[in-house]
């Protein structure tokens, strides 16, 4: 497949999509010094040229619709088209965000239903749907923790604890909340090192951020003990919902001692990832933190749905978005939840876990090293390619790149950092056994190739539109926008 020229390269001055150009409006009267003198660099192409260009570009993408996409911690499961259809109806798409509640009862009833569903799913007291991504949900959680302590007159707590294996967003969020991050160790079996936690926790502890199943892809077995230790020290527990898919319908974060959490609707509730977003990261809290939830939420007064703003939540941490967050994503999540129903939700965790454990067992039998062989896989698992790296000189990165040639997206690589040369593999519940078997075959084939000709694997990919890209050059010789010259 050839690389595609940029749309600017195909542009011709004066060419336009006539059917899309409204009649020019009159600008006389506007001060000259406030007007633009030169045209921006925008494509000048026909509508067909644009359609063909972006159709061709789309074909240079791996996607769930086209490929197995076992990207650990990202839950790349099938995104039902029906949910997309439901959210794309004119009544939803054309609604202005400032339309008053009395004329928005349809939408508000959807938000109400989703709030109620997520309360049950998480076992928490109250939900705000506003955060526009997991990381923004984390920020909301951190800000609520801070607001709570300050409301209690406690200004001494300035540390957030996170396990060394935590998502990078956890410490980055702590910084944005004005907190310092203290890392706690992970024991050899993948669980949090309780002794280390006991050493670190204290009067400076504002809270702890945990993912369960953890980023080591195992269930944190001593979670209730951890909760007691942190609560006894006056800290609060934050649940990073990245891995909720693993326990949906089995156990609730609210029953594991957590005070606040976010969900990733683009993971657990199957809303499309869109090439990097949008997501949605609603937050759920227990009664302790309810007063601080980000606004607005939806409430019910008599038979009317209403917006709950500062007047109902004077202690709120405030707004996180100009309007109501990623409303369209919330509708898709509700549509997915309605189609799953209570019986479907339990099946999510069961089949996701079944698929992951099957794939782990088959890879292990094929001679690949599980990072935590004594532990049960959750909805995902870690393998380490350390042995292959040492014996054959072929690293996890090389396996990842070669997998692309087998039309499979690579798993998450080199995360968490404490497991060397690792793959974090999340097959999700929507894949068939056949696909999982094909993945095992591909991994075995790549290892064979590496034994015969390591360089061939190290130079992968071979069948993609481009060969391996020079990332060092990309960062050193910054070329971040088209300047009219061929690169």
């Amino acid at each position: 497949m050839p690389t595609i020229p940029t749309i600017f390269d195909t542009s011709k001055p004066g060419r336009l999509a006539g059917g899309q150009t409204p009649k020019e409006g009159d600008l006389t009267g506007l001060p000259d010094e406030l007007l633009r003198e030169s045209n921006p660099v925008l494509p000048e192409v026909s509508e067909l040229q644009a359609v063909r260009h972006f159709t061709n570009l789309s074909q240079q993408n791996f996607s769930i619709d086209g490929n197995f996409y076992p990207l650990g911690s990202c839950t790349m499961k099938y995104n039902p088209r029906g949910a997309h259809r439901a959210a794309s109806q004119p009544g939803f798409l054309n609604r202005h965000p400032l339309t008053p509640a009395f004329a928005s009862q349809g939408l508000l009833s959807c938000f109400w239903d989703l709030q109620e569903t997520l309360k049950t799913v998480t076992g928490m007291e109250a939900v705000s749907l506003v955060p526009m991504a997991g990381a923004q949900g984390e920020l909301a959680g951190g800000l609520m923790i801070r607001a709570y302590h300050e409301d209690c007159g406690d200004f001494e707590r300035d540390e957030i604890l996170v396990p060394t294996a935590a998502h990078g967003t956890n410490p980055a969020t702590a910084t944005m909340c004005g907190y310092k991050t203290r890392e706690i160790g992970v024991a050899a079996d993948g669980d949090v090192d309780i002794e280390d936690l006991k050493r670190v926790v204290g009067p400076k502890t504002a809270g702890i951020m945990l993912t369960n199943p953890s980023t080591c892809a195992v269930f944190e077995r001593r979670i209730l003990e951890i909760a007691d230790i942190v609560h006894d020290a006056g800290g609060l527990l934050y649940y990073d919902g990245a891995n909720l898919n693993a326990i949906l319908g089995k156990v609730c974060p609210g029953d594991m001692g957590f005070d606040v959490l976010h969900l990733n609707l683009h993971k657990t509730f199957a809303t499309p990832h869109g090439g990097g977003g949008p997501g949605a990261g609603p937050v759920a809290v227990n009664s302790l933190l309810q007063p601080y939830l980000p606004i607005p939420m939806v409430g019910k007064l008599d038979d009317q749905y209403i917006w709950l703003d500062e007047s109902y939540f004077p202690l709120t941490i405030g707004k996180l978005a100009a309007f109501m967050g990623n409303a369209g994503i919330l509708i898709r999540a509700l549509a997915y939840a309605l189609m799953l129903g209570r019986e479907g939700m339990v099946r999510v965790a069961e089949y996701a876990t079944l698929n992951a454990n099957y794939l782990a067992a088959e890879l292990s039998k094929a001679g690949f090293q599980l990072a935590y062989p004594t532990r049960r896989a959750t909805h995902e698992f870690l393998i380490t390619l350390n042995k292959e790296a040492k014996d054959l000189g072929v690293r996890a990165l090389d396996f990842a790149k070669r997998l692309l040639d087998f039309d499979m997206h690579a798993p998450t690589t080199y995360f968490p950092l404490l497991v060397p040369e690792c793959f974090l593999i999340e097959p999700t519940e929507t894949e068939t056994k056949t696909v999982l078997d094909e993945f095992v075959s591909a991994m075995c084939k790549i290892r064979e190739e590496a034994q015969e000709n390591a360089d061939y694997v190290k130079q992968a990919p071979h069948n993609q539109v481009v060969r391996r890209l020079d990332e060092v050059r990309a960062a050193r010789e910054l070329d971040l926008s088209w300047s009219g010259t061929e690169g």
Partner: protein
Amino acid sequence: MLQSIGVTNIDELFEEIPDHVPVANFRAIESSLTEMEMVFRLAERAKQDELGSCFLGAGSYDHHIPAAVWDLATRGEFLTAYTPYQAEASQGTLQLLYEFQTMMASLADLDVANASVYDGGSGLGEAILMAVRSNRSARNRKIAIGGAVNPFYVKTANTLVRNQGIELVQIPHENGVFDPNQCPIDDPNVVVVQQPNFFGLLENVDAISNWAAERNALLIAVVNPLTLAVLKPPGEWGGSGADICIGDGQPLGVPMASGGPSFGFLCSKMKHVRQMPGRIVGRTVDANGDVGYTLTLQAREQHIRRAKATSNICTNQGLLVTAATIYMSIMGVSGLRNTASRCHENTKYLVAQLEATGRAQRAFHSPYFHECVLRCAGDVGALTKSMIADHGILAGLPLGEIDESLDDCLLLCATEKRTHEEIDHFVELFNHILKEA
């Protein structure tokens, strides 16, 4: 499969969950619906909210979107891909983002754009954090915010920045526009101005830019990207131009959709790029020396820098950026220019017709672009309510809740979609309702 794993039933796979954690109780969640039943239920609710003509803007605008935009953006290859971590298998998304960055940087006439943030409001928060990090010479963490910057953006930004010791200082507006003489502090670290401002008015951006530069403050421009097709771009404001430009991309092919998902864009001078939050795509070469695209400058980001990252953001609004890039490509220079100028002309017509009724007059006298504040002879709250309830028309935003001195004012907008017939009908109703009241 169970046999391969070495268990006899699925429950055994959950044996590591301690017994004393109670089993989830999902009885409150209803039983599953088929796609048909689900769509039927949500269609009823969507139908309930359908309205007619929209004369409301205030940060979200009712523009025409070419049919091809969303037909293409929702191709499964765009819709169901993720962040392009494996660049070689994601050249489509990466090249599109590179083209997007080019278009946005050029619209703003600044050096660099990122691959988007969540929305305009949170984008202002990110821009302020970025500016404070970048302006190391500054003596304080005070941000001077123009009085007519979108109040929803300011509230959102405040949530995001206040816990890092950053203080937002509001400058009262003078006749609806930014007046440096009203600024309560002498030495702001960062100055924020919006063009056109929240009231639709055009600010004297050259003078404001120079005023900020004289104080060694960085300047953040909040803009509507569509208007940049005809208005002077932030990079050319005053002697040195704005440092950072942010805004909401909704006017570029994204439906209003209750405010989201939309996307925020963020552009800046090259000297600030290492403080930029979010994904950035760069062009490079592959092992054969052929052109290719990849995420770059990742050492700024949370997955590498953790607590020292420029932001905790990782998700961008890729799908909306995809739509906007296709939108800008189809519309091109003429399409964007004409859409922007048509909005201006339609709004001028709307204002003239409303003023001709004798029941409304402009609250401020600076030139406006495609929104305008009108002082009305009557209860604007009751007027907007009746317009919706009786006629299905969104009649603009009553401003009393935002500024008490404007409690008899409406903020109105007429995009390129509003015909003269629609406007005339609206004006007739406006006149009639206020006469009866």
